[in-house]
C-alpha cells in the first residue's frame, strides 16, 4: 500500500515537473537570452553560466525607441479596455442576474455565439468603417474593440458571481430607499469584487498581447508593443536576437507579474459557478 502511494506520488511529481518545464522553459530561455552576450545565445552546447550583460536593453533603448512608445500605448489601451469591459460586464451581469425574461434568456446564447466568432471575420469589414469614422490609429478604437470582444465572456462571468449574492441584500437596500444604481454601486460591486478582478485579469492579458486588431487598426500613434516586436522578428537586414529577447522580456514582465499577483482571482473566475446546484 505504502509503495503504491509512493509510486503514485512520484508519478504526480514527475508530471508536475514535466508540465512546469514545458511551460517555463521557453520563458526562462527568453529571459536568460536577454542577458546573455549575443554570441552565446545560440551556442552549442548551451552556456548556462555566463556573465550577464545589459547591452541588449541599451541597444533596444537606442535603436528601437519606438518599442517604448509601444509599451506606453499598450498600457493606455489595456487600462482603457479593461475599465470599459469591467464596467459594461458588471452592469450587464447584474441585469442578467436580477431580471428574467424570454428575450434576456435567449440573448445569453447570443453572447456566447459572439464570443465564438473568429476576430478576423469582423476585422476586415471594419477597416473601411473605422477609416470612414476617422478613428484609425487612435487608442480609443482598440479600447472599444478589445472591450467589445470581452464584454460577452465578462457578462457571463459576472452574472455567475452576482447570482451568488443573496437577493435579500438587494431587497434590504431597496427598503432603505436605494435605487438600482445605488444597489449596484453600494451592494453588488463590493461583494462581486473577486469577479470584477477575474474579468479584469482576462481583459488585461488579452489586450496586452493582442496583435491582429492592433495590426489592422493602428499605424504610428497607437502602435502597440507586440507590433514592434513583430517588426524585429521580420527585420530584412537580420534579426538581432539579443535585442528581440530583451524586448520580449520587457513585454512579458508586467503581464506575468500581474497574472501571478492576481492568480487567485483568475482561478476564481474560471471556477465561478462550478459548485452551484
Amino acid at each position, binding site marked *: 500500500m505504502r509503495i503504491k502511494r509512493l509510486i503514485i506520488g512520484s508519478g504526480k511529481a514527475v508530471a508536475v515537473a514535466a508540465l512546469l518545464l514545458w511551460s517555463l522553459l521557453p520563458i526562462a530561455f527568453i529571459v536568460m537570452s536577454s542577458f546573455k552576450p549575443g554570441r552565446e545565445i545560440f551556442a552549442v552546447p548551451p552556456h548556462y553560466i555566463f556573465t550577464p550583460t545589459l547591452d541588449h536593453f541599451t541597444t533596444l533603448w537606442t535603436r528601437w525607441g519606438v518599442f517604448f512608445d509601444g509599451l506606453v500605448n499598450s498600457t493606455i489601451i489595456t487600462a482603457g479596455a479593461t475599465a470599459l469591459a469591467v464596467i459594461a460586464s458588471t452592469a450587464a451581469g447584474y441585469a442578467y442576474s436580477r431580471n428574467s425574461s424570454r428575450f434576456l434568456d435567449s440573448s445569453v446564447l447570443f453572447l456566447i455565439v459572439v464570443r465564438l466568432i473568429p476576430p478576423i471575420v469582423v476585422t476586415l469589414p471594419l*477597416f473601411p468603417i473605422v477609416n470612414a469614422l476617422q478613428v484609425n490609429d487612435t487608442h480609443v478604437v482598440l479600447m472599444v474593440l478589445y472591450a467589445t470582444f470581452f464584454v460577452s465572456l465578462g457578462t457571463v462571468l459576472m452574472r455567475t458571481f452576482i447570482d451568488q449574492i443573496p437577493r435579500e441584500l438587494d431587497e434590504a437596500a431597496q427598503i432603505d430607499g436605494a435605487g438600482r444604481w445605488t444597489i449596484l454601486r453600494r451592494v453588488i460591486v463590493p461583494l462581486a469584487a473577486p469577479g470584477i478582478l477575474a474579468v479584469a485579469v482576462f481583459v488585461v492579458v488579452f489586450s496586452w498581447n493582442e496583435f491582429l486588431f492592433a495590426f489592422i487598426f493602428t499605424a504610428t500613434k497607437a502602435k502597440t508593443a507586440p507590433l514592434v516586436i513583430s517588426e524585429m522578428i521580420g527585420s530584412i*537586414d537580420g534579426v538581432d536576437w539579443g535585442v528581440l529577447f530583451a524586448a520580449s522580456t520587457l513585454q512579458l514582465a508586467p503581464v506575468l507579474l500581474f497574472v501571478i499577483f492576481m492568480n487567485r482571482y483568475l482561478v476564481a473566475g474560471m471556477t465561478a459557478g462550478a459548485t452551484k446546484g
Partner: protein
Amino acid sequence: MKDRSAFTFTRRGFLGTTVGGAAALAAGPTWAAGKTLNVLSHKVHQTVLGADADDLMAAWKSANDADISFTTFDSNPLQDRLFREASLTETDYGVGYIIDNRPTSEIASLFEPLNDLTVSDPIEDFDDIAHGLVQGMTVDGNLIGIPVRHATQGLFYNEALLEEAGISAPPTTLEELVEQCNKLTFTSKSGTPVTGMILASDLALFPVMFARAFGGDFITKDFQLVPDPAAMEKGLDVLRAMFESGALPRSYATTKNDDQVTWLQQGRAAFTVLPFARYAQLNNPEQSNFPGKIKAIAFPGSATLAADKPMASIVEAWAMVIPKNAKDKALAWAYIKEVSSKRVTLGMALNGNGPVRVSSYSDPALISKNPLAEVEAMVLANARGAFPPFPEAARAQATMLEEVQLAVIGRKSVKDAVASIIERVTPMMPA
C-alpha cells in the same frame, strides 16, 4: 506693513494662462513643417535614410517645407496593409514600398502609373537604375514603382572552417561546392559538429538556384513552368545527395532563414546562401564566433552550364509606389525623386542598402566600406527574381516546396517530384 510676495498668481491669471496654453497647443507649434508625407514601409527603408545630423532627406524636407512620417511593418504585413490602404476611397499614405514579386495586374492597377512623370519631371539619370529592376516594376506596360533596394543572393562561406579542412579556395563550380560541403561535414577542432551547407526549406529561391545552376528554372519571366525539367531534376538530385550524405542537416525540413544566419555565425555550417547585405551581420563581432572570417562569392553554376549562359542568381527588389487614392501625389513624387537621386542612393548604400544604381558600385566610399560591392554588382548584372508575380504565385510556391521537400528527404523520387510540380502548378498558371 504687510509683506507681499513679488509674484502673485490670481484665479483670473491661472485661467487665462490655461486657456492661452491650451489654445497654443491646439494651434500646433509654429515651427512645425507645413506638410507631412506619410510613408508606408519596412523599418529598414527608414533606417537607411539616416536620422538627425545624418538625415539624407534633411535638405528635401527643408526645401519642400515637409516632414516625413514613416509607418513601418514587417514585409508581408506591410504588403497587406499597403494593398488595403490603396483599396480605400482615399488614403493618408503618399508613398508605399512594394516587393517586386507582388504586383499582379490587379494589384498594379491600385497604383499610379509613373511613365509620364519620368518624362515630365524626370528622376536624375534614370538609365543608371538597373534595367532588370525597372522591368520588374513594369506591369502591363505601366511603370508602377521606382526601384529603391535589392537583395541579391550570394554564396557565403566560413573561411576559417575551409582552412581547417585544408581547402585553400572557395568553389568555382557547383560540383566543387558539393565536394567541399561533403568534406566540411565534420567535427571542428572546437568540438562543434559542422554541416557542409544550411538552407531554409521553406523558401523557393534555393531549389530555384540549384535548378538555375544547370540552366533550368521554376517559372520564367514569360510564365513558362519548369522550362527544362532535366535541369530541375539535376538541381534536386544535388540537394538530395547532399541530404543523404549529411551535408545538409537532418533538420532540413524545419530549417528557417534565421537558422542559416545563426548556424553560420556559430560555426555549425560552412556554407549558406543569403543576400550579400547579410555580410555585416554574419561578421558582427557581438553575434558571430567568426568575425571577419565569413566571406561571400557568386553562387557557382555547374561545370556543365553553357559558357554563354551565365548563372542567374536570385534578386528580390523593393520599389516605391504612389497609391492612386493618395492625397498629395506631387509631394509623393518629389520624395521618390529625391530618394532615387544619386546622392541619396549612395548614402543609403553606405548605410547598408542594396543600391539600385549601377554607378553606386564604382564609388570609392562604397567599395572601401563594403568589400562585397564588386562581386555583388557582378552577380546583380545577371540576377532575376525567383519567379514573376501572378495571382496564384504563393500557392504555386508552396506546392513546389512541398514536392521539393519530399524529393530531398527521400520520400519521393526526384523525377516524380518534378513531374508533380508541373502537374500541380500548371492549373495555377496565368492564362
